[in-house]
């Protein structure tokens, strides 16, 4: 981590470079207002008011642009510091010249993410929200942007906090029996205790399990196009991309390496991977291709298994493949529908016929893919999911501690031992939002129970 003096006032153009209608320039830090006032030809900047004025180069006096400036007074700003936002005209001239005047007046160029870091440091957002800002900026799909927005709105933090509360409840009951045992407190039934711990653990594990959906929303779903050689896998990739991306030929074994391309459908990002046709072969190159294909297939969120309708009789390979990949959502795609419209009857599996080269049913295929992913990973528009491995690990650690706590209850251990595990579970949860350890257990007790002689 790089460090700069906190007295530094930082400035940057916050909109993307290029030919936009307007650009927004942001100055944050103790001197933000001073610096803005030097550049803007206005006497005063009133907090939370949009001020129309002109920006001038204080050195040459040259007018740079007509702008609208808004002053946000600390701590009521994005960063928690004094901030001025100047909206000027977009393009390559106005904003950079105003920015360079800011530098002349003593502001320093902001590091990437520094505004958000300051917001986090000043307690304007927790760690989850700070991460969501980064996700939002880098979002490549609608679904990823929406998820980041939900997290930024605090939905995920709320969820983690609810879990935290659930654990504090358990901890306070344990501590109550220890620290106030002289008093008339009905001891919690051990079965109930075990159940509460088990419930908390389930809730935490459920949130951990949303990792995959979070990742899919953020980074896209990995879709492997698999099947025997010559079934039309590369043709399907090209058809979906509407681009001659992969080499196509009637020779079986054309594709050797995996080819990945991203593709957006209804706001959802698919990472399509074309793979080498699967078959037993002596060809060393093709064998390497096959093992690469297998690896991608094993990591896929969704498999499109292609079968060739022009050779419909033998489905033994496909049936076995389906058997071996039961855990992953899979669509059996009968290709070359144009050559043979008779699709075999299948059981317990999603299947459909398409044509890759004479495009048919491709929209239906895409919608089916989306539907299967949504169903399997519960990607409805409202749910929040975690999106980072860091978060998942912390949740798993917490769940692990709760498992130990449950075992300790079962073994008849006394509260102080169980409390140790619960505390570890709480610590792990706190590391997710980056909030300070709360010694709130006693507070919790005083609010919930009448204790004290």
């Amino acid at each position, binding site marked *: 981590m790089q460090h700069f003096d906190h007295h530094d006032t930082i400035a940057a153009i916050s909109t993307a470079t290029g030919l936009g209608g307007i650009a927004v320039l942001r100055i944050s830090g103790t001197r933000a207002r001073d610096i803005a006032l030097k550049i803007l030809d206005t006497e005063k900047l009133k907090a939370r008011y949009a001020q129309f004025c002109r920006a001038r180069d204080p050195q040459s006096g040259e007018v740079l642009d007509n702008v609208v400036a808004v002053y946000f007074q600390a701590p009521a700003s994005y960063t928690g510091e004094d901030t001025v936002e100047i909206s000027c005209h977009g393009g390559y001239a106005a904003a950079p010249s105003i920015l360079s005047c800011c530098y002349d007046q003593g502001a320093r160029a902001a590091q990437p993410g520094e505004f958000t870091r300051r917001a986090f*440091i000043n307690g304007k957002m927790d760690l989850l929200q700070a991460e969501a800002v980064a996700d939002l900026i880098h979002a490549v799909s609608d679904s990823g942007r929406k998820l980041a927005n939900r997290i930024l709105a605090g939905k995920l933090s709320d969820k983690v906090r609810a879990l935290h509360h659930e654990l504090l409840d358990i901890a306070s009951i344990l501590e109550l029996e*220890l620290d106030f045992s002289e008093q008339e407190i009905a001891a919690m039934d051990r079965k109930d205790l075990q159940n509460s711990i088990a419930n908390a653990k389930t809730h935490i594990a459920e949130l951990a399990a949303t990792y995959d959906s979070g990742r899919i929303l953020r980074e896209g779903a990995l879709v492997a196009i698999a099947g025997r050689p010559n079934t039309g896998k590369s043709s399907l990739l090209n058809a979906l991309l509407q681009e001659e991306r992969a080499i196509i030929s009637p020779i079986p074994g054309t594709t050797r390496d995996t080819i990945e391309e991203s593709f957006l459908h209804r706001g959802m990002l698919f990472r399509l991977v074309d793979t080498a046709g699967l078959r037993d072969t002596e060809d060393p190159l093709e064998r390497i291709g096959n093992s690469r294909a297998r690896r991608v297939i094993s990591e896929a969120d969704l498999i499109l298994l292609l079968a060739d309708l022009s050779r419909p009789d033998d489905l033994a390979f496909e049936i076995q493949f389906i058997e071996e990949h039961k855990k992953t959502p899979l669509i059996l795609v009968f290709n070359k529908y144009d050559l043979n419209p008779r699709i075999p009857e299948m059981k317990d599996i999603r299947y459909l016929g398409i044509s890759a080269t004479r495009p048919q049913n491709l929209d239906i295929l895409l919608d089916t893919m989306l539907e299967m992913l949504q169903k399997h990973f519960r990607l409805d528009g409202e749910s929040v999911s975690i999106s980072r491995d860091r978060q998942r690990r912390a949740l798993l650690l917490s769940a692990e501690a709760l498992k130990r706590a449950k075992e300790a209850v079962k073994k008849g251990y006394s*509260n102080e031992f169980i409390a140790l595990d619960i505390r570890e579970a709480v610590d792990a949860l706190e590391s997710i939002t980056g909030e300070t350890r709360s010694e709130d257990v*006693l507070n919790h007790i005083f609010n919930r129970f009448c204790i004290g002689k």
Partner: protein
Amino acid sequence: MKNAYDILVVGGGHAGVEAALAAARLGKRTALISIDPGAIARMSCNPSIGGLAKGHLVREIDVLGGEMAKATDASGIQFKLLNRSKGRAVWSPRAQADKFRYEDYMQRVIKNTPGLDVIAGDATELLLKANRITGIRLRDGALVPGRICILTNGTFLRGKIHIGDIQIPAGRYGELPSIGISDQLKALGFSVKRLKTGTPSRITKRSIDFDVLEIQAGDPDPLPFSYATKNFHPKNIPCWLAYTNTQTHDILRSALDRSPLYTGKIEGTGPRYCPSIEDKIVRFSDKAAHQLFLEPEWEGSSQWYVNGFSSSLPVDIQIRALRSVRGLERAEFIKIGYAIEYDYFPSHQIRRSLETKEIHGLYFAGQINGTSGYEEAAAQGLMAALNAVRSIEDKTPLVPERHEAYIGVLIDDLCSKETSEPYRMFTSLAEYRLLLRWDNAHLRLLEYVREAGLQSAEMIETFEKTRNETRVLEKKYSATRILPGNPLQIPLDQPSALSLLIRRQELDERHLPLLREHYFPEYGVDAVDQAFVLTRYEGYIDRQFKQVEKMRQLENRHIPTGLDFHRVPSLSNEGREKLIKFRPESIGQASRIRGISPADIQVLLIYLQK
């Protein structure tokens, strides 16, 4: 200065007593200045010592060479080990004390301590020269010269009693408040705030109908508080249990508008763990009955303490309400319950040595640091004196860490937490609770006992012996095999390691006498027991030590005194503010201050690396 004392202790409460005794025993000329020498070591409130977590404190005071445990053993009339059904770490001794015998015992010990003078007087002003203590001025104008002053004024600083809408300036019922010192310190720039606490009525014994109450006796085979106490055969005088009812609550509720708590006459915050009865019925209105403990204040006492009925409501209401309780219909009142408000000094103003950050030679201990409880006060008094003596001798302060003692937790909390209510000890405040057992205070504090210099050589030798034997026995327990048909009468089909039997709980505390007799006769009872506990909870204890290790990196990262936090870049605003206020001595301590985030800690670490 001629005839100057080394150490002046202001206040003869539980903090003052321990402070004065320790200072004098360490060879310093000491004066104990108290408004009323006859009230030295008085129990202001309930006649009991110890209890959960507080019992631990008393044991630690004892091994370090304090007096509280011995006084309790000598004056207790009922002893009980609390939480006995739970694990070792949370067992805690508690005693009902004969409050007169307790006072007498302490006053006698003080009288017989060479180098310790008791001065009857009301200290009104600290004498200072260039930010150093030079003495004390008393109300009558007398000057007492001294280079160090330990203030332990308890609830007396600008103390004010509330009963209904009546207010009486007082330090305790019938005792004058102390006026002067808190105003002086405030003028010197100290932060001074108000807290409140309360006490219940005392009623006559003959007016209690014991026949309808539940009896509560102590343990038949009690253990003493002090390691020095031998041949312990105390009295076992019972207490009694009564319950409030809805009628009681109605009476109390009808007069809430006359309570100084709700009319806003009291500004200080009271402890939530020790609420007044009116507070209880308001905050927990769905509870139909509250427990009351009736406790004798001394052996053969005609005066009984109504534990659980603390109140500041008007006299007539207190009387009517208590008389609605079954068994107390005819209650005759000797003293009425009251609330008391007093000045305290928010404890960010002291260092871990308990010396104030601003004035050299000035120490604060006890209630004036925002704590509550005899045990908490005594522990601070002892530590303040130890460190005052060490400062005279140019030695570094002696303060146990959080994983070593409840005293360590107490002091660290004082130096890193903001108190909004009187602070008392709870086992849940100790994150390394499993290490801080009441039975191993002598072992975990051994190095401190040696350094402190208050224990006899003999006692230290006993402690050392136990520690060494425990280490040996721990290994032996793993190596020893218990055979079928063993003298412990544990049914076995095949030989089994002793440690395994302990962990599987097939061998428990009850087997220990036989175990010692047949397998380890040459070892002490204490060591056999300690090794048992360590074996039994090995996994958990190891885990706690790992946590200690992990934190130690932070605890050992010293923050230079006088570090200008304004110059540390990238700290959060709140974090910076708190750092400036508390001036923590280590990163570990900083990490426990509310408002200092993990990000701030990272920032500090990086800054200190440079």
